[in-house]
């Protein structure tokens, strides 16, 4: 087990800055995810940790050891690639045993360990198959087994589930999480799927254009986005621009731009703390809305419903106030008429203001 730390890690490809002065710490045994749109630099960052890329600036530490220029084979990592990268000329057994042979284990010990790990990833009896005889999900498990059998200090995943179909993907998520918890290996995971990141991670770093936008637990990132990018990238919401006109402790009064209305809000994140006169983005998560028959003093919107979809455990209402789109989730038993105005309310403590 090891703690990973980067300091000002920077990697350029020609003019493009793929990773831009990223400093972060991943704790012992933590499941840490890099989340971001494609091209945000998350894979490049992962490859710098694996030693597959040489950063242009900055340092990578495993515990207190500077590994920035240590070649990949001396870093003791296990990596699972997006396309699994199974060696087609070797059997499942040989694929998994490869790293053990390098480490000089005896034949018997190798056999014992490979069979053990196959059991762990639920592929007993598959050791003599060749990779192309396996399904995508099975190939994925072999790749995983190959990475964990060497008992690495660090596990690295580069979008490992993106080639699986939706159902299998959700199964494998749980499986990965279970394995990681059992093994307790420090894990860095890269994905562009925010739902996947939310469900699997201890902490998430949201990345955009080579920079870390926010680091936090899934709850923190969802409930307390630090900036507009994170707010819009994670989950869904209703977004309204405005200006802070008054402030009373944690309570802000925001004058909205597109709708003539003042709303009461709280700062979304302690670090994104707006003052009077600041322009802010007000974000409301869909489930923060309540249908309200009676009139409230504030934070009440009259919206026109143009689409309602039934999601099973909730009802998703798409509506507009003026030109501003609202996304609202309510109890599935509610009756919401399409084409008619309804009144919705958001408690001030769920109305989040982000300084722009």
């Amino acid at each position, binding site marked *: 087990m090891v703690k990973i730390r980067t300091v000002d890690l920077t990697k350029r490809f020609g003019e493009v800055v793929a990773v831009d002065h990223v400093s972060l710490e991943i704790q012992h045994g933590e499941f840490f995810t890099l989340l971001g749109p494609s091209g945000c630099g998350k894979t490049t960052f992962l490859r710098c940790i694996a030693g597959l890329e040489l950063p242009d600036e900055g340092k990578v530490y495993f515990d207190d050891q500077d590994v920035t220029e240590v*070649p990949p*084979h001396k870093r003791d990592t296990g990596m699972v690639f997006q396309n699994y*990268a199974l*060696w087609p000329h070797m059997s499942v057994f040989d694929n998994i045993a490869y790293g053990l042979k390098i480490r000089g284990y005896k034949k018997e010990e190798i056999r014992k360990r490979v069979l053990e790990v196959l059991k762990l990833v639920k592929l007993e009896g598959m050791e003599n198959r060749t990779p192309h005889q396996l399904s995508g999900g099975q190939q994925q498990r072999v790749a995983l087994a190959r990475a964990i059998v060497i008992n690495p200090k660090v596990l690295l995943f580069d979008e490992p589930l993106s080639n699986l179909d939706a159902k299998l993907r959700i199964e494998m998520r749980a499986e990965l999480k279970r394995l990681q918890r059992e093994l307790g290996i420090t894990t860095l995971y890269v994905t562009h799927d925010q739902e996947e990141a939310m469900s699997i991670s201890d902490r998430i770093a949201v990345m955009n254009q080579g920079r870390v936008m926010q680091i936090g637990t899934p709850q923190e990132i969802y409930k307390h986005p630090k900036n507009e990018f994170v707010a819009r990238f994670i989950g869904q919401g209703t977004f309204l621009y405005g200006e802070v006109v008054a402030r009373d402790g944690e309570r802000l009064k925001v004058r909205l731009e597109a709708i003539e209305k003042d709303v009461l809000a709280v700062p979304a994140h302690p670090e994104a703390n707006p003052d009077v006169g600041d322009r802010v983005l007000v974000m409301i998560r869909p489930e923060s809305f309540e249908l309200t028959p009676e009139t409230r003093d504030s934070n009440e919107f009259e919206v026109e419903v143009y689409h309602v979809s039934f999601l099973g455990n909730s009802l998703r209402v798409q509506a507009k106030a003026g030109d501003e789109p609202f996304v609202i989730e309510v109890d599935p038993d509610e009756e919401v008429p399409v084409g008619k105005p309804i009144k919705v309310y958001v408690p001030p403590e769920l109305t989040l203001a982000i300084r722009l």
Partner: protein
Amino acid sequence: MSSRAEGLEERLKRALRRLKWEMDPFSWSQLFVVLAAFAAFMLIPLGMVIVRSFYTSGGFTLDSLKLVLTDDYYFPLRIHLTSDFPFISLEGVRGSLYHVVEYTRPTGEVVKILYITGWDFGVLVNSLVVATSTAILSTVLGFTLAFIFAKYKFPGAEALRIISLIPLLSTPFVGAIGLKRMIVADGVLNVLFHDILRVIPFKVEITGLPAVIMVQTLIFYPIVLLNAYTALISLDPSLEEQAINMGASGFRLFRTITLPLATPGVEAGALLVFILALEDLGTPIVFKGTVAEKVLTFQIFNRIFTPAGLISQEATTLALILLVISAVVFVAVRRYVSLRRYAMLGKGGIWRPRRRRLSNKTVVLVYVFVFAVLFFATLPHIGVTLLAFSKEWGTTILPESYTLNNFKAVLADEQARRSIVNSLVYSGIATVFMVILGVSAAYLVSRKKGVPGIEALDLLVTLPIAVPGIAVATGLFLTYLGTPLSPTISGAPLLIASYTVRKIPFTVRSVFSGLEQTDKALDEVAWTVGASRTRTFFTIILPLIALNVLAGGMLSFIYSMSEVSTGIVVGDANHRDAPMTWKMYDMLFHGLAGGLAQPAAMGFMLMGLQFVFIVGANLLLRKRATALIGV
């Protein structure tokens, strides 16, 4: 220190850090052996060609260059301005395109022979004329066939397409022997068309430069055919459909859409044919004694040794000129091929090429054309084969009787036997070197793209395609005559070295394409589980590209076997260590009664070997291509 100098230092430091990261001792040693081999046996020798063209023991001189550029034998052309239309007159052209000779047979029958001899423009221009004509004719022939095969549907198209590639399986040297027997006055073609079918009123004998052009065209057109065919079938059909949709059709569609899109592939093929025709020594040798001699390659070969046994400066200067022309064309090839990749633009995926079904009438026309081409294209090979097995062959279409005696005679000849063993041994050893160097070079170029300047290595190992063999041979002699590697001591070192540097592109290309098809993640994952790069190279990369290595090695081997330029020059200097190609040359001109039959028997063996190896290599690669799918 100025900030600019600091910037430079900074950049240098960055490059060094990069280098340290990418290269380990194993990669360094790979790079070193490739560079050392190319420096010793390609770059320094070619440098010697340049230096010795201008320096003699007496110091710097332009005498040799002046001689070559002004002597009537090399460059007799003089341009004069005149007062009459067309205001320019060209003097110095000798001979005429054709002349007719009449004679009376003892039977009283009058026979007319039309000799197509071609003009003689002097050595320098002759070489250019031959190479240009061959390139143009090959392009017309190759592109037309490619267009027919790519665009039309008719019974037997696929079989005919494969047959039309047969000339790839031999070299001009061997093909020329076969074709010569066909196109002389008493040859098969005249017997068939004049004596029997009586469709031509006189016999036709093609000699001199036209014969060289004919042989080269019939051997080289498949290069253009392959390039053009690939370009045409990889065109996204929607590009043409879009044009049709906008109202283009017929010739306009061809001129405005199809041709421009296929042009880069065709141009690359045409330029390659130009270089191959320019550097071909085998064909002029077969037609020795005619104007065919008056081309650069033959003149270099003929004059390379002074009576004192040294390398003549005249030949060296000719080699330099040959080198310069090839280099210019090579640069053009690389420009075209790299700059004009747009033909391959498209959304990817597999499409069915647009193929038109033809009306019955047009099918007949297509058949007449294709069969006519294939008839001529297979003549050299049929000629060699028939000659090799012929006992007596006078003025009939087919030999009067067949025998294996030609082969027995070859195998009974001690020198011939030794030459076969020599060729096998030298090519075999060279193949080992080519595989080691070729795999190293291809690996570095494919996997070390981050190393500053690695593109230069790519250039270096593809360069030999463009370097005329006779220029390499000249350079090797200039560099190593009188050293322990001297061919007068043993022919082996220089022949093996020459084969290695000249034929390595076949290995490099095959291995490189294998590496490019192998996901780099397969190497990377091995590193992450703890394998050093060296270990990864041997346990992961090599097994994955083994078939490409084998196929590339086979091609390099067989093209070494059929190498002419260095082989003949070294063979002339040292008969004991001469390879097969020299022995064939020797039999052609200094042989005893056998005439063409015994060299043809050797040529047939070479052709057969070439057939087996080339077809084998292609089967290997195809099998691999399908085996890769699905993993």
